[in-house]
């Protein structure tokens, strides 16, 4: 029996020193390690054995160590080389994770009574990438086995990804990557379809070796895929469509592969390059919301996939606003020490100003104690207003300011801008389509806010033009198909009772269409939340913030204003994009406030 001294590692990871007992030609036994490659947390070893079907391993201290994974296969070349039959030779591929031994002992299984020799191998220093690539290429037909165990190591994954071949006819897996669009800092989404027999696993691999199984992707059915693959896959092609978030940082132009792992084999199915996604949040949403996520999975999609992208884009849009100060024009003499800043954003049309200024002109108390601030939130209004406002002042004699911030900011942003150019100790948010119909309304609201220390925010009763209630306080209703609490206006559409003798009723929240609060409270809260997409829920958000500070919300009952709110908020068949934007906002609001609302409305589990 030949014996060999331990070999202290090898050059470039290649060991290749076989030990073969050739004394008995009918019973040749042998053992060899071909390669041993440490990289990141793993050590991968290949070799072969003659005369046994398995091998065992011990560490430096003589303890048996069990690998992460071991794969046996034929080695016809070795069989031919040593003149033995194929069945007597087994190749092996072994993967170790975080083994701290320096010397491996490779041996015949310990239960074998005649063990001709043990092979002692020292761990080589960290291999060059060439060696790693050589090992991987030599084992391309076992790429699935390698990936399954090495998925957490980008170095290994990247190397394996390079040698993947296109699938063969035996593997029942089909798939295609259709889009990969993202923003470098935050990440992007990958959209495509994949369908296979259940034993096959799909995964996405990035150029940098990042690996992700497709199990967390949002799935939906693709009728076109079902039809195209029905002869091969039948019912397995159901829910083939997918959308998967890929966390940043991303390098635009780098690639993503869709691969299929079929037992020990793996194949590449499709490749796509990262492209830039729209950076304007609404444009991103218009593009991304086209992908048909089933409605009952929409909230899940936002939570696990691109909710974070939209949020980032909205924040970025706000930060990138022009830092130059807004343009403020005063018409007439604004009162020097106003008590209330009335902030009115304008979008799309400004003819409401006529009706509002007309009403204001009849309300001496309002004109003497408030500064009226119109905020242009629509570039198309800048020119018409610059010609009309002087005429409005001359006609009605009501002084007012007009503010233009350079771009459209949405309701919350425009209102916050208007508040920032005012000085009065109280602020009143007023929608441009809310028209008072009796003077003294502002005085009444101020009096109530002043005389009720517990009330932080005061709203008002708003009626539709035909006299039905449009708003008389808001509360929340759990909407199961959205997984969120939605704002509800109880009594909306019903006949308004006579104005109530008791001046204020308490509610959960009130609309910002007509909302009065102290500037100090506004500042403490931080103003209206501008991070909802396009706009929504800002009023319930600010009310809940006030409640969190221990304050209550009231709604003035002694009079009403008219709100020309479009009555077209519908239960079914809405504009699909608008519906999804609303769902995004509801999801965001629910993340912030879900539990607080549940506790507020009476505790216990969510309905």
């Amino acid at each position: 029996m030949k014996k060999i001294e331990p070999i202290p590692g090898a050059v470039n990871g290649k060991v290749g020193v076989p030990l073969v007992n050739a004394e008995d030609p009918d019973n040749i036994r042998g053992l060899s390690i071909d390669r041993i490659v440490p990289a990141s947390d793993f050590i991968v070893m290949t070799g072969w054995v003659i005369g046994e079907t398995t091998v065992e391993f011990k560490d430096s201290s003589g303890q048996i160590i069990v690998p992460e994974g071991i794969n046996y296969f034929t080695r016809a070349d070795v069989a031919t080389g040593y003149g033995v039959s194929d069945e007597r030779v087994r190749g092996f591929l072994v993967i170790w994770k975080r083994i701290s031994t320096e010397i491996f002992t490779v041996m015949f299984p310990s239960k074998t009574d005649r063990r001709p020799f043990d092979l002692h191998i020292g761990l080589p220093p960290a291999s060059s990438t060439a060696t790693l690539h050589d090992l991987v290429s030599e084992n391309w037909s076992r790429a699935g086995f390698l990936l399954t165990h090495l998925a957490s190591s980008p170095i290994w994954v990247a190397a394996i990804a390079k040698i993947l071949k296109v699938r063969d006819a035996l593997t029942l897996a089909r798939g295609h990557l259709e889009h990969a669009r993202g923003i470098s800092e935050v990440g992007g989404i990958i959209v495509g379809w994949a369908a296979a027999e259940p034993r096959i696993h799909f995964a996405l691999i990035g150029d940098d070796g990042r690996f992700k199984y497709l199990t967390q992707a949002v799935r939906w059915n693709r009728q076109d895929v079902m039809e195209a693959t029905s002869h091969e896959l039948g019912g397995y092609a159901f829910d083939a469509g997918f959308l998967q978030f890929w966390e940043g940082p991303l390098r635009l132009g780098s690639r993503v592969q869709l691969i299929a792992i079929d037992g020990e084999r793996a194949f590449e199915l499709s490749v796509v390059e990262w492209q830039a996604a729209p950076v304007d949040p609404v444009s991103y949403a218009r593009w991304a919301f086209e992908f048909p996520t089933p409605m009952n999975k929409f909230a899940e999609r936002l939570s696990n996939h691109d909710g974070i992208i939209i949020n980032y884009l909205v924040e970025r849009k706000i930060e990138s606003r022009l830092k130059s100060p807004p343009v403020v024009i005063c018409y007439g003499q604004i009162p020097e020490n106003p008590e209330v800043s009335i902030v009115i954003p304008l979008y799309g049309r400004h003819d409401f100003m006529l009706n509002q200024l007309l009403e204001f002109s009849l309300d001496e108390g309002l004109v003497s104690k408030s500064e009226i601030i119109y905020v242009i939130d629509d570039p198309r209004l800048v020119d018409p207003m610059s010609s009309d406002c002087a005429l409005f002042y001359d006609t009605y004699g009501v002084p007012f300011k007009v503010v233009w911030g350079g771009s459209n900011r949405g309701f919350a942003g425009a209102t916050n801008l208007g508040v920032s150019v005012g000085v009065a100790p109280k602020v009143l948010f007023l929608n441009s389509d809310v028209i008072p119909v009796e003077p003294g309304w502002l005085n009444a609201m101020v009096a109530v806010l002043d005389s009720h220390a517990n009330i932080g925010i005061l709203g008002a009763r708003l009626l539709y033009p035909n006299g039905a209630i449009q708003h008389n306080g808001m509360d929340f209703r759990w909407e199961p198909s959205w997984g969120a609490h939605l704002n509800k206006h109880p009594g909306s559409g019903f006949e308004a009772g006579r104005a109530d003798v008791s001046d204020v009723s308490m509610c959960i929240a009130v609309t910002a269409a007509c909302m009065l609060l102290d500037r100090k409270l506004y500042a403490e809260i931080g103003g209206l939340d501008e991070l909802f997409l396009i706009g929504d829920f800002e009023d319930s958000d600010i009310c809940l913030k006030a409640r969190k500070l221990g304050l209550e919300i009231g709604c003035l009952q002694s009079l009403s204003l008219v709100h020309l709110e479009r009555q077209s908020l519908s239960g079914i068949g809405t504009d699909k994009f608008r519906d999804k934007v609303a769902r995004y906002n509801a999801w965001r609001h629910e993340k912030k406030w879900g539990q607080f609302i549940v506790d507020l409305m009476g505790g216990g589990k969510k309905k």
Partner: protein
Amino acid sequence: MRALVIAHGHPDFSVGGAEIAAFNLFTALKRQRSISDVVFLGRCDHQNLGHGAIMMLRHGEYLWRQDIGDWFRLKSANPVAILTAFREFLQFVSPDVVFIHHFVHMGVEVLREIRRTLPQCKIVLTLHEYVAICNRNGQMVKNKTKRLCYRESIEDCHSCFPEYSPQEFWLRKHYIQRHFEAANFFVSPSDFLRQRYIDWGLPKEYTYVIENGQPTAHPDVANLKNENYHTKFAFFGQVTEYKGVDVLLQAMHLMPKELRAKISVEIHGANLESQGGWLQELVEKLRKPLIAEGVLRWVGPYEHAELPRRMKKVGWVLVPSIWWENSPMVIQEAFVNRRPVICAGIGGMAEKVKNGVDGLHFEVRNPTDLADKLIEASSDPLLWMKLVRGIRTPLNYDQCAEEYLKLVS
């Protein structure tokens, strides 16, 4: 007692007989002392109103934007709105009694919702056609052959609609009947329809006949003897194939020319242009020579308020419908204006018009028989006078409301 009247339309926007009847009940209830408050809810399809939303129209009157989604089962297109907006509305109105004159265009689910939200409330369902029984526009006319249908059964209905199995018709009937069970009482304007519903499964002890109220009659006996009323005939209504205008025109053609020259026929009809091309062609072919002869006047559509004046210019009102009808408004209107009716002798028509007492029957869909009746009617003025005297004054609105209130007091 607080009352709520629900209909599948509001007369401001929709002019069918059933919604007008429902609204008349609403206004009559306002005058009743035992009613402290009454509200009307009419379905609409106004695009500016969010789907499913309920909005006040004026004091005491509300509109509800709703639709049927599944006509086979009479299920609402917006069932969530029934559980939200409608439920909230019921709680807001809080009626002690609900008179519901329809669920079409809204959904049969409203019945169970009323019962669930207002457990003590009395619910009276008025049936104006056979839609719960018959999938074919609620008419009980066979689908392909257009023959009259005398009886429903899951196999018969499957023959009319092979695309729905008998099992599906059973499921339909089960679904609708279980919803009907929410009501306390059922009202039919005709005994004929009442009997059809009892055959279908409604309990006869809880199913009543109450005729639709009519405006108070103002009989004008003064000129009756001087004019040749007995030679003047008129048809009022939609010109659809079911109203039998083509049967009337054919009957006129079958009269001998010299007898036809003695009569005049007016057609006060609307919506011929919305009918199938074949009907429009047929009507045009039949009416052209009659108009040329001067015996037929095609007057065209009319506003409801013009009806009394137009009816009073003629002697006889013709109702040649080819289907059962229930209680055609035009018959009641003719009686209010003291005009006898010549009608097909089937269904609700034969019930409301008594042959030889206040009108004449002819064999349905038979122009020859109608021609004979036209000749008989126009030849003897004494016959006409006798039939005029035989006319009973229909219930007025207040009397109708009182009948309804008797059910629930």
